[in-house]
């Protein structure tokens, strides 16, 4: 945790709302991205984002600074999201052939060379079990080390690696039909 973030956390813990607001501004986009990759619904992701920051605010005094503030936030958001998925019993469904999804999950920033491949990968991502998906997203997209992901997910490092490995295998499987 950098000094500036530490200072913001200390002030927020002392009841400074402006300091907390600044922490929100600095972290909201990456937390939103993580939740959205898990739920694939923007409104749900917004709700969970709000819940996560509210929970963080309420338990701010319990934060001891053992990990970075963003890791702590990721942990809160991950728990909220996994609980939501469990409660809602979201069943990943994606028809690879027709590319039918509830809504476009991602914004494609680059020109897509192979639309069918993108659809297959999106479908494979959607169909990953929640724990595997979380481990994959934290590692691949958020680029966090396994040790930190283990703390966020409250699992052992080897369990996290297994989740990530399995997720990768499933994504490679989706690529199988597109081999040259």
């Amino acid at each position, binding site marked *: 945790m950098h000094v500036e973030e530490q200072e913001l956390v200390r002030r927020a813990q002392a009841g400074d*709302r402006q300091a*907390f607001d600044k922490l*929100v501004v600095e972290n*909201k*986009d990456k937390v*939103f*991205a993580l939740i*959205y*990759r898990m739920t694939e619904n*923007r409104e749900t992701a*917004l709700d969970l*984002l*709000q819940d996560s*920051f*509210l929970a963080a*605010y*309420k338990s701010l005094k319990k934060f001891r600074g053992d990990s970075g503030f963003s890791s702590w936030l990721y942990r809160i958001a991950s728990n909220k999201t996994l609980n939501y998925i469990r409660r809602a019993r979201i069943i990943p469904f994606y028809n690879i052939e027709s590319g039918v999804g509830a809504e476009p*999950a*991602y*914004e*494609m*920033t*680059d020109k*897509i060379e*192979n639309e069918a*491949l*993108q659809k297959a*990968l*999106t479908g494979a*991502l959607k169909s990953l079990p929640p724990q595997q998906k979380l481990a994959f997203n934290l*590692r*691949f997209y958020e*680029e966090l080390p396994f040790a930190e992901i283990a703390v966020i997910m409250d699992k052992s490092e080897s369990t996290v690696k297994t989740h*990530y*490995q399995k997720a*990768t295998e499933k*994504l*490679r499987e989706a*690529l199988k039909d597109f*081999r040259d």
Partner: protein
Amino acid sequence: MTDELKNSSDSELGKLEAELKKLKVAPLTQNETARFYARLDAALDEAATRPNIFYRGFLRWGAVVSAMVVLVGMSFITGIKYGQNGITADSRITSFSTSAVDQVTEDEELDDKYVDMLITSQVQSYGYDISGDLLGEISDDELQMLKEAIDVGELL
């Protein structure tokens, strides 16, 4: 970075990573950001001004708990009063019959004395006048009519 994918010589993995990296989450729009801040601010304001859990608990359950305390207190005081000034007729009967039975050990049979005591106490508790006649309320004329109408033998 994800070494497992990035450093792999496997072109398949490189392709996989390249494609996956294209899947960027669209950032929050201005509208979404404004809604998020508004809702979070409202929730944080509420959390900040909300009384603590004990006070909220008191507001919610205070009346019920107070009423229960008053009731328990009243029953406690009443219990002391009875204890000091003697007991009611009903409880006197109960205590009598209980004490009568208590005097009989398991090895003893209930003799006539105890049976009489028990019957007396039970009859008293149900409000019968043991000395009263079953037909005490009937007038002489009515009694005569009954004698004529019904063959009661030696009963009357």
